[in-house]
């Protein structure tokens, strides 16, 4: 694993950032699009340091051992005000529905 890491390219193009921004659903400004590739490269280069560590025999961490699944009845709870109240908090709504801009595909 550690050997593989060393070979990973850390050149990030503007086009790649555009793709990532699309996948993450964030539109970047022109200025951000100019700076983010370089900033990302710097961070990715920095984290390459992890390839020095031999983790051949190490299991990845996923959760602290005290925790386990918690189940409960699927019931509305006292702190819930109901859907009507929540819908009212949105910017646009009508007849207890969210209203969004029309989308033409």
């Amino acid at each position, binding site marked *: 694993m550690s050997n593989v890491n060393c070979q990973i390219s850390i050149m990030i193009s503007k086009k790649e*950032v555009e793709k990532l921004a699309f*996948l993450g659903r964030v539109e970047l400004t022109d200025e951000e699009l100019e700076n983010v590739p370089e900033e990302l490269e710097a961070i990715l280069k920095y984290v390459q340091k992890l390839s020095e560590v031999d983790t051949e025999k190490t299991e990845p961490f996923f959760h602290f051992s005290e925790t386990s699944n918690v189940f409960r009845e699927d019931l509305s709870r006292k702190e819930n005000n109901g859907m009507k109240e929540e819908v009212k908090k949105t910017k646009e709504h009508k007849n207890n529905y969210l209203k969004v*801009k029309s989308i033409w595909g």
Partner: protein
Amino acid sequence: MGITIKETQKRLRNKETTPEEVVSDFLSLIKDKNKEMNVFLDVFQDTVQEMKEKDPDLPLYGAVFGIKDNILIKGKRCTAGSKILENYNASFDATVIEKIKEKGGVFIGKTNMDEFAMGSSTENSGFGPTRNPYDLERVPGGSSGGSAVAVSAGMCNTALGSDTGGSVRQPAAFCGVVGFKPTYGAISRSGVISMASSFDQVGVFANTVEDTKLVFDSIRGKDERDSVTVDFNGGLAETKKKDKIVVGVPKEYFVEGISSQVKESIEEALSKIKGKEIELVDISLPHTEYALPVYEIIMASEVSSNLARYDGVRYGREDTESAMKSIEELYMKNRGKGLGTEAKRRVVLGTYTLSSGYYDAYYIKAQKVRALIIDDFKKAFQEVDAIITPTTPTLPFKIGEKIEDPLTMHLSDIFTVTASISGLPAISIPCAKKNGLPVGVQLIGDRFKEELLFNIAEKFEKIWQI
């Protein structure tokens, strides 16, 4: 230094003051200073009324809280420092808020923060930077900068923050107050806006360790609404050796990256504790240098997932003018406008580290090294009762000094991320002043040994008394 909870409670009990006076003193200070320091995003007008309705026998009676603006108070605005939630009003109380209300505490306002708790300076807030009360040209640290300043400048008795990689401890050190992050799972996060869920914890700012403990004891414990919480009675206080406390000094924290000013201050502070029933021993935490890269990867991955809910439809603003060609375009425009640069940068990075081609190389690799860091601490705690380190590598820096370079900014968390990665309780307490600026020391305890950690911190607090 502001007024402690204990002091306010004593004065209320002895009828030396009234709820009206307690609250109006804080409010007038906020009125005087908030404009230049930008500490509170919202200040409440119903605090006196709330206090008058509380039973004076309750443990938090009289305590006035500032609350970081990523913790929900029913009926109050909650922005998380982000424009995307500028008009969001909370529909329920966070569990910690519920508990404070039950125990007699009241709230005076919501404090400024880096957007979605991402930052180390409170410069990334959508509502302008907060300033350090010791020097208005300097940052208060972050992301809970508003809460740190609120306590430091005496605008409330105590404040809640959230700590993901150091966001309570680091600003506490920069502002000369006590800042505490509990063991992962000790305090419920229900109603706290998520940043990186495997690190996020609610933390406490206070003037003293005693106040910190009082607040912690009032808000900790199992909550079925946060599945990582555990039944927790406050922790164990036994020390390893009968007649003294053993404190480990990890050599890795006194080498790279630490400024000479902080190093000198800490060494001087440590020299004062020798021979006071405290034994300092040299220890090694060999994987320390990998902590920040591990944090960087896992944090960004979790952020990119947690921030997906802010689509500008269910939450947040919907800013678009015309009809959209696709639902993706709608989301991208809403999020593009509503989120700040640092938040967007982390969404992009997290999307990269979680993408199928890179998942093993980045995310899984980081989780493996995380296991090794946790193991370092496990081994160390077989020998010691607590570990002592500087809280921050530098003194509070100037506003604007690091904002252009994200990586340098992230280095501010270098001494605090290890306890976050390992789910350990840690507390920053003031130990000295250098050039008129506060320096903090961090004490890290073993998991769920809060009681012992507070005992040790109180001893140090007494020795350093600043």
